[in-house]
């Protein structure tokens, strides 16, 4: 892959846990690559699969869905629902050459700023290895 390629990652993060962690990572000045675009959702349970599909088709090289640890969900069980949705997309998208690795689900608790930073950095590196999403160069939305 080209050395020049800089992936763009879209992260749907839950308001309660991961967003807090992301904020912590930011305010703690943890080293983060500038490839991340954060979209705050109230809960991962509200991340519609079509948001993820839309993101990938609109130029995101990877999509991160991140919420509370099991049992932590502010809305009781939204994260479990999210897991099934991501599982579904992990089955559908690879059939069209969209690697499974491009859609990630993680649990990151409010105090895990370092975990969030590391997760994102690893994800970016992984996607950098993987190369750009095909949709980037296509005139399809």
């Amino acid at each position, binding site marked *: 892959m080209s050395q020049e390629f800089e992936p763009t990652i879209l992260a749907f993060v839950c308001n309660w846990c991961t967003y807090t962690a992301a904020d912590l990572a930011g305010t703690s000045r943890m080293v983060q690559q500038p490839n991340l675009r954060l979209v705050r959702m109230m809960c991962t349970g509200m991340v*519609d699969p079509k948001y993820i599909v839309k993101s990938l088709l*609109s130029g995101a090289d990877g999509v991160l869905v991140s919420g509370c640890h099991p049992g*932590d969900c502010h809305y009781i069980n939204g994260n479990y629902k999210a897991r099934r949705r991501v599982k579904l997309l992990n089955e559908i998208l690879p059939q069209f050459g969209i690697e499974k690795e491009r859609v990630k689900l993680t649990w990151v608790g409010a105090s895990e700023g370092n975990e969030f930073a590391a997760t994102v950095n690893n994800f970016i590196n992984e996607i950098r290895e993987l190369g750009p999403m095909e949709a980037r160069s296509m005139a399809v939305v």
Partner: protein
Amino acid sequence: MRKQYGALVVGAGIGGIRAALDLAVTGHKVALIDRRPSHGGILAQLDHQFPTDHCGMCRMLPLMSRDSSSQFCLRKGLFHDNIDIYLSTEVGEMEGEPGKYLVSLKRKSTLIDPTKCVSCGLCSEVCPVRVPSEFNAGLTERAAVYLPVPYAIPNHYVIDLDNCQRCWKCHEACPTGAIDFKFEERKDFHILVADRDPELAEFMRGELEEQNFPLHFAASGQEAVDALASDESFGLLMIGMNLNDMDAERLLTRSRELRPDLAVVVMADKGSEGAASDLVMQGAREYLVKPFKGKRFVAWLDKLYMRILSDTTEELEVGAVVLAGGFDCYSPAMDPEGGNDIWAYDHPGVLTAVEFERLMSGTGPTGGMLVRPGDGRPVKRIAWIQCVGSRDAQKNADFCSGICCMFSIKEALLAKRLTGGEVETSIFYMDMRASGKGYQRYRMNAEKEKGVRFVRSRPHTIMPMDDGHTLRLDYLSDAGELLSEEFDMVVLAAGARPPKETDRFALTMGVDLNQWGFVDTQPYSPEKTSKVGVFAAGAFGEPRDISESVIQAGAAAQAASRIIKAYDVLAGIETEPEPEYPDVSREPARTLVALCASCPTLEQAVDIETVSRRMGDVHSVCRVVPVGGACTPQGWKDIEEAALEFKPNRVLIGACMPYAYIPRLKELGRTIGLNPALMDVVDIYTASFNTACGIGDADCKEKAEKEVYSNLSTAVARLQGADPSGPAVTVDVARSALVVGGGLAGMTAAMAIADQGYGVCLVETEEALGGTAMRLHTQLDGSDPRKFMEELIAQVEKHPNIKVFTDSRVVLSRGSAGRFRSAIASPRGVFQLEHGVSVLATGGHEAKVYESGLCVHKTVMTHLALEEQLATGQLDAGAIKSVAMIQCWRNEGEERTFCSKVCCPEMLKNVLNLKQRNPDIDIYVFYRDIMTQGFLETYYTQARQAGAIFIRYDDETAPKVTFGEDHQPVIAGFDPILNRRIEIRPDILSLSSGIEPNDVEELQEVFDVAVDEDGFYQEADFKWRPVDFLKQGVFACGIGLAPRRMDETISSAKAAAQRALRILNAETIARETVVATVRHSLCSLCQACIAACPYGARVLDMDQEKIVVDEILCQGCGSCAAVCPNSATVLTGFHDAPMMSVIDAALEEPA
């Protein structure tokens, strides 16, 4: 003018937060203070809490009127319209009476202007000081200028003046000039020194030359008084104790008369410290012992000067006071030898429980890696030692901290989880006190499923091995062998202690402390202190775990709200009505973007002009205005003016720390007449701090600009889709309550609600009120439960607001929070009832187990029956030679899945009672674990001292009961200490049979609530919403919820009442901003959303053929929207179309 509050809550830990929130949502103004610079108490340090091993603290936030409080992680911060939080603040003085306490708060300045600090951290980087970090329990170090909690909001640095070296480097480093050491004001700080000694004057002149303080010396008292009477402004008076004409006390008095606010310091001579400290009691700020040493004196004076100038006081008038000081954790460092002799506390492998907790945390010293913090060595074997500092009569701790057992199990499980089960975990304990709801299961799971080893023994010492790495524990096995094991890490389950300086605090507040130094509380009212109108919440009155603390906080809030209501506090103060905002949903979006460009960091990282220009091109942006300091009054005014000029219908502010702006957006909304939901603040600073590439690098600048631009344009897109309009759905609250169950819990809840002026229907299935508590005749604390219950029943029966239905059942209950319609079937017919809330207090009963000769042999009885027979004189203790008791007694093979919590105290009560009546009685108690949490422990000690013999048993050695002649029980047991079988032939066999919840199958259906696997009510969240059901407006308390003793039952009932009052106190309940709605024209009625809703907020209206959302129950989680295939269900603010635009905007600028 004093600030007026309904209540003052002292301590912003979990108990204080809960009490404050409970009061705030009920409509009372609350001042929440904490002496620490951060909120959250010990929970700020704990990422995981048993028994879920997760957090979920945010679930405590209000569910109704959510817009009035912050909606983000509660460990991060808290905002509420009705709560003012004062940090680094202590109570200075308090006087007055219930309903009108005059409180003076001492607010310690952090010396950093929060409106200027952007949390860039440069100050901390240059600070040369390193002291142990409180947040990481001393496992890491921090500078003297530091962030108290890394994720708190607002997240400003604070200066720890006590440890400051006065190098001023931070001041130089601060890019925004936020640090204020009051350099300029020194020359106006006149110091008057009243001292006879001319050498002192010379010394001070010499040493303080650089400080520029104007010094005035008075060699006599009169001279000093004259100076004070003059017009000269003084900042400080220093009184020597050597004045000829006037003693120091007199001068102090005169100074207090002439200049009450002037700070006074006493310069004591060696040997007169006692007199000096008396002067401090009389109002001097502190004393300093002569002779002074140059450097140290200057530093001291300089810091004192900064304190005097920076610290402030706040005068409040409050109706009631809630004390929620929590507890301090015992540390071996409190021991004379620093805990090194016995616990080897200085060894890198020895940690306290809190330290271990920090070690496991992502924000901890190792970022959550399980290695030894001191030397980084790997950890393969960990031991926990229980009861370190608890149950220790030698350390004035003849009490059980009640939390450590569960704490240790949790930590063992966390360690297992972190290492994939690899680490070996052993817990050394005496009694495993898992008596809370679900705790026994938690323990069993840890032992049986997760492989945590439980060892019943107490290692007395930790011995570091010569290799310098491992630690040896010697302990005695049951068989009497001395065993040795080596561990890489030993965690001390250090118990609870009253917070530091509680004695002084108690003096200020005028409350009594108990023998262990905790706040003394009253029987049957564990929230009441010795002073009327001052209440104890959380763990301040007794060590408690989260769930119990939260309940206790609720009880304290209830008591406080009762005072507030009774004295009509704040009656005259009008709350501002919720403003009406124009509906802009039909107008095209016009967004005003304000960019805060005050901080040099941003300027260095991005070209603000470029960003502004490009933002101007974003669709719907009508104007981009750079402002200098959005957080400053001037900057905010600029934004207001721009908004008034350009009349936008969306406002976006790019600044730092967006959370901090949430309350201010509401103000802005009022000023410019725009709904705050159409405004947002975006963090544009974090991108600029990114150190991944160097400042000044063009490529880096471009990346940062892209990131800032993307953040802003995403927010613009989101704002475009924001739609706060819509019909104002409100529920008119039926302001009365239905309480089911006329036992202690039900009656207490009914009284609490009725006392505040709301009607209560109390429904009891039995023919008389009273319930299980009526079976008690004595209490361990010597109080008379019978009398208490009889009085309570009488009060309930004659209360004008309470209508009692006995011999009755609730057969129907429909509706939702604020308005239920129910039907009560009574012998007099069926009553219809409209009410706003329901409280289920259906209680429980003594489990009936027909074994071991119960109900067959008259020599066998339950503990309750024994108590009764002793109380009524049916049984003559003098005629009995011996009694045996069996705890945790159940049918054979029956799983012991939960602890009934009452049987151990009940047993102790009988033991002490018997022993008191007849000291010669032999008493044998067979037990598994004695559950005497908190101060009950002392009765256990007493029972042992009185000579009762406690014989431990487990599954294999459970005592077997047979019967000899004359019904005499023959108990064959086993003593593990002597390793011998024992046989006891007592006159009486008393059995603890435990508590079972009453059968509520019918009520479950009627009220649409759930029970857990043991048949107790399933609360919404065990820790954070312990008396709520998931279904709003329905609450539970008492034994129906979990086994409880009387005091705990009362607390839970009061807590439930307080939750209920929140609804009853409101005339209407308004809809929320973020709530789901249904677009019926698109809806196919597949009901997937109904299944997805975790709150039961959706139902299918069969008649109208549409899905109806109960907007009170809906919490806006969006599960329904995600499951709806064609977006027929939408969440306000998160419509699909705007979400698509948000995604587009976010991706518009590839990285």
